[in-house]
Every structure is written in C-alpha cells, then in structure tokens.
C-alpha cells in the first residue's frame, strides 16, 4: 500500500509537487496522468526513495520514505522514464549485479531472470553491452531488473515507451498478474487508452497539484466528457489551447 499526504517537493523557488495526497491500495493499479513537467516523475522518484520530499508524508509498504529510503528501495521496483543502467555492462552482468545488491538467492535470481528474459525476448542480447542496445531493449532490461526481487510495490514511469507491441502486451499482462498477487502499482503514461485499459483509478496532476482523482468512469462524469482524452484536456485546461495552436499552425504552414 502507498499513502501520500500533502507531499511537497521544491527545487529552489520552483515547486515541482505542491501538496498532493493520494493512496494506492494493495492489488491496485494507480495511473498518474499529467502533461510534461507536471510533477509526475518527481512524485515517482520520491515514492521510490530516490528523492527526499521537502515536506509531507509518504509511506510505501508501511515504510516512511523520509526515514528509511533504503528499506523503501528494497521493497520497490522502479522503472524510470529513461532507462538508468550501466552501459558498460552486459545484461547478464547487470542482472547479477542487481541480484547481488538486492541479496536475491542465486536460485531465485536464475529462475526469475530466465522467465523474464524469455517473456521479453531479449535472449540474444544478454552478452552485449547495454550501451549498444536499442532504446526498447534497454527499457526491457530496465523493466526486468526492477522485477527481479519480486517487489511489493512497482513504480513505472512511462515504462511502455519504446516497447514493441508484443512486449507492451506482455508487460500489461504481467501488471494484471501483479495486481492479482496484491501488489501496489503506480503507473504513468501519456497513452491515455492504455491508462483507461489497465488502471483501477487515475490521478491527474497539473502544475504539481492533484486536480482530479477517481475511476475512468468517475472522471468522465466529473468532466462531462465522453473520452479520457477529452477529460484530460479539459482538466488540464489544454483543449482550447490545443485547438488554437492547431489553427495557428494550419495558417502558418
């Protein structure tokens, strides 16, 4: 379970996250939607124990991130927007490194890597340096390494980026399975159809604030809109702006 209460994160005078509160239950997939720079990635880094909050309370799996960030990292699997990997290592070496740092027993590590590598189809790249792999393959390595220790909580920041349709489908199915197992999952994406498909509840962040929250149906009702895209554009005050920009572009081009 994840509990976020009045979370604030400042970078100098800039406020990236401005007092947001939400809760993700066990066995729930929570979607964080918002335009670029709205504070999603900052929120997710705080949930993963990477970035300390300026104020507010964040509890992940019963652990306060401000007090025990290392413990939070132990129970969390985090996939950043851009894969953060050692480019001079091969996936084999990286998985062994992550397994060692996370103190995963050898047998379990072997089992999980074999299964995940097969699922994402990266067998032929295991001996190559990560730096030489395509973005999509690196994203798969990043996803696998985040799942090696069977985390209680998964934090996926636009993790579908760069994945081929088959792998995207496999990830979707995996997330559904994790939900069945009672794991809490926070998931951010710009693909609204995907969010609509897999998220139990959605929070919309805009300018660092959580401006709406609920199931897809609740959000549609709230905004009096038919599609999640229209809900999103309306809530983030972007619809008129989008129409204006498109019109201006048509005239300019």
């Amino acid at each position: 379970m994840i509990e976020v209460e009045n979370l604030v994160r400042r970078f100098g005078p800039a406020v990236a996250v401005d007092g947001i509160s939400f809760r993700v239950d066990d066995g729930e997939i929570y979607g964080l939607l918002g335009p670029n720079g709205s504070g999603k990635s900052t929120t997710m880094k705080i949930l993963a124990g990477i970035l300390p909050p300026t104020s507010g309370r964040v509890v992940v799996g019963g652990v306060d991130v401000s007090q025990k960030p290392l413990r939070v990292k132990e129970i969390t699997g985090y996939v950043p927007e851009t894969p953060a990997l050692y480019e001079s290592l091969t996936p084999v070496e990286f998985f062994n490194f992550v397994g060692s740092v996370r103190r995963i027993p050898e047998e379990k590590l072997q089992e999980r890597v074999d299964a995940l590598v097969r699922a994402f189809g990266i067998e032929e790249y295991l001996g190559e340096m990560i730096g030489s792999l395509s973005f999509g393959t690196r994203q798969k390595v990043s996803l696998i390494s985040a799942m090696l220790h069977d985390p209680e909580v998964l934090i996926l920041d636009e993790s579908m980026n760069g994945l081929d349709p088959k792998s995207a489908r496999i990830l979707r199915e995996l997330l559904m399975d994790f939900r069945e197992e009672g794991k809490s999952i926070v998931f951010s994406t710009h693909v609204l159809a995907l969010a609509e498909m897999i998220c139990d509840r959605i929070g919309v962040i805009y300018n660092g604030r959580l401006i709406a929250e609920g199931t897809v149906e609740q959000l549609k009702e709230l905004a009096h809109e038919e599609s999640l895209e229209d809900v999103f554009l309306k809530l983030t005050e972007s619809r008129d702006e989008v129409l204006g920009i498109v019109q201006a572009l048509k005239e300019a081009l």
Partner: protein
Amino acid sequence: MREIVRVLYRELHYRRLKNNPQIAADPKKFEEQLRRTGDVKRGLAVQSAIFLLFGLMMGAAVWGAGDGEKAAVLLATYALLPFVMALYTTAVNSSYAVSMGIFEPLKPLPVKTGAKYLSALLALDNVPAVVAMIPPVIAMARYSLPAVVLGLLWVFIGAFLGHVLGLAVFTLFGSSGVGGRFSKLRTLARVIGVLLFISLFYALNYVQKYVNEHYEQLLPFFSRYSLAYPFSVASIVEPLSSLLLALVYLAVLVPAYYLLLGRVWKFIEAGSFTSSARRVAFRARVHHPVVALFLKDLRIIARKSALLVGLLFPLFLVLPTALSVLSGGITPEKIEFTLLMVAWAASVGVDAVLKTDGRDFDALLALPVTLRDFLWSKLLVMCLVPVLTSIGIVLLAAFYSPTFLAFIPAALMLPLLTSSISLSFFYHDEEVLSIPDTGSAEVLLLMILNGFALGAVALVWYLVGYLPALVLLGVLLVPILWLLSR
C-alpha cells in the same frame, strides 16, 4: 565559437553536479556550486592561481640558475608540465565529456566539425598548466629577452603538442564500440597502447635527467641538435634556430590538429555500435554487495580505457623513479621510500575511481546500496593497483633477500591509508550516495594531506623503526576506516 564553448563548459559542470544527488537535492548548494564551477572565467582563475604557486617556485629556480644555458635546460625540464597535462586531460577527459552526452545536441545541427568545441573545451583545462609556466619563462629575462618570447612560444607548442597527441589517443583508443569476439583483446590493446604512449615521456624524462647530470659535456650537442620536445625548449638561448624549430613543429602540428579534429567529430557522430549479436546464457552469480560493486567498477574500468589509464596513471608517476632508485641496489631504505611513494601517488587515482559510475550513477540510486558498501567498494578499487604494485616490489626485493617479506604489511597498509584518507576527504560529511566534484585543486589538497600522513609514518620508520611505524599506521587507519564504515 566562444559562446558554444561557454555553454558546453557550463553544461559539462552542470551534468557533473546533477550526478551528485547531495548537491542536486539542495537547490541553494547546487546554485552556488554551479556558479563556482560552471563559470569559465571563475573556474580557470581559481585553478590558475593554484598552479601559479608552483610556477613561482619554478621561476625562482630558473632565476637562480646563474647561467643562461643551464636555466634553459631547467626550463626545458619544466616544459614537460603543460605537455603532460595537455596529453592527459585531452586523452582522459575527452572520453568523459563525450560519455556525458554533452555533444548530443550538436549532432543534429549542421555543424561540420563540432569536435573543435571539444578541443576548445579540453584546451581550457590546460590553461592552468600554461599559466604555471609563465614565471619560469619570465625569469629567463635575467639572461635574454628573446628567450622570454621564445619560451612562451615553446610552452604554447608543448601544450598544443600534448593536446594533438591526446586527440590522437582519443581517436585511436577512445572508441566506445563494444561486443564481438575480440572486444577484450581490443580493450587490452588499447590500454597497452595508451600506457606505452605515456611511457614515452618517462623515456624523455630519463634522457633529460641524464643530460642534467652530464650537463657540461652534452651542452653543445643538446642545444644544437635537440629536436624532440621538451629538449627543444632549451634551444631558446639560440633564438634563430629555436624559432625555425618552433615553426617546423607548428607546420606539422597544425595540419595534424585539423585532420584529427575531423576524425574525432566523425567518431562522436557515429556513437557506439554493436559488432555482432552473441547468444549468452544467463548464469546467476550472487556476491556480497561490496564485492558486486567492486566487480562492477572493475568491469567498467577495464572497458573504458580512459578510466583504466586514469587508474594506472599514478603508477606511471612513480615507477620510473622507483626503478631508478632500486636499480642502484636494494636496501630497506629504498624499499621504504618506494612503498611510501606508491602509496602517495595512489591519491591521484581517486579521480578515476569516483568517475567510474559517470552518468550511469542513477542506476545505483534506485538500488538499496548503503553509503558504507559503496565506499568500501571504492576503497577496494582504489587500493587494488597500488597494493599489487607495492607487494610486487616487496616480492621482487624478497627475491634478493627474504627478510624483505616483513614489508608486506606496510605494502598493504600504506595504500590503504592514503586511499581511505582520500575517500574520507570527499565523503566525511556525506550521508547519502553521491559523486563529489574532484577538481585538480581538491586532488592537490588531498595529496598534501596524504603527504603529511605519510610523512609522519616515514619519520617514525626512519627514526624509531619499522614496527612502531606499523603501529602508527594502524592507529591512523582505525579512525579513518571507522569513518568510512559509519
């Protein structure tokens, strides 16, 4: 051009600071550090001021030489400084700057030779070494005014030569291409190539030393026929031939520079490549986190020749002197001196060790790695080369007399002391994982600090004996290792 270099310089320092979560998480500290290090003029002024102190010492020696020709020979010795600095910073830092991705925004732009910006960026790092040479060059005014002008020209040529050769090293050995059947062999070849390349300066240094010792007999030959830098610098007492030689150097270096710049840019544009796909089965091998971090660092260092050279570079500062000391017959005093020197030079390795993670440091932040495990792994990496060298020297000495085996504890503990002091220096008030800014001023200060610690040990060793020195080593090590284990 100036604006792009200014932006790249700031960007490079910005990314280095961003890699440091301790600084990046504190906006005030971040702004302050960026203002201090990201500004070209300010950054260079601080470093140049430090180097100028050495310059004044060298200037005093040149002034006091008493004889113009002897002063010129002395200046020629010092002229190794801008040359080696330029070679080292260009060869090592170029890979670092490129790997941080600061040239990525230039790639899609219609820039013909963007490498000139890399060249200018790296040349800036050489400014302090050139500034250090100003006092000894000016001191030549005591003997001849044209020698001052020519001296400045030769210092510039020395830095330029080092820079051009550094670019050649980067082009030949700095490839980020990975994988393939012969990748390990290529890495080894690159490293051996770089090390042999650097060894050349020691050959030059040896000849220089020889010339100094046989100054009277060799002076006519030295001044008339010296073609190789830095001996050529001594020709400044004969303005015409010196000027002609300098022009020949420039005539070769300038086209070579432009040729290499083109190649470097093509290399940067091409980026990394995969030579061939190899199917490898995964076999789980789990180690203690410290060992896993240590192995990770070793693998990265072994695959990035620039980092490996950085790690081995302290040895190259020490080994020629050590070999010349030992070549005159092995005595306990000489072994002691050599061990102290190897341990002292180990301080320089901190820069390469802390740069190992580079921009991939984010990968570590998502993992439950404690600062203690991180520091112990870095300590192991940092100690590895100096400890192996020290033990090698002791074993070599033991071949002549087994009593030297008693020096094994010192061979282990001395590098451990300087390495742990180095890490404590950068991490004494850190509480979370971070990569500190290891500028030349910090490394210089660190070497002075380690010099004091080793000086105390050496004093006890000379005056009281080996065993009390070992006890002192233990006494010094305990609190420092405790600090790292918090």
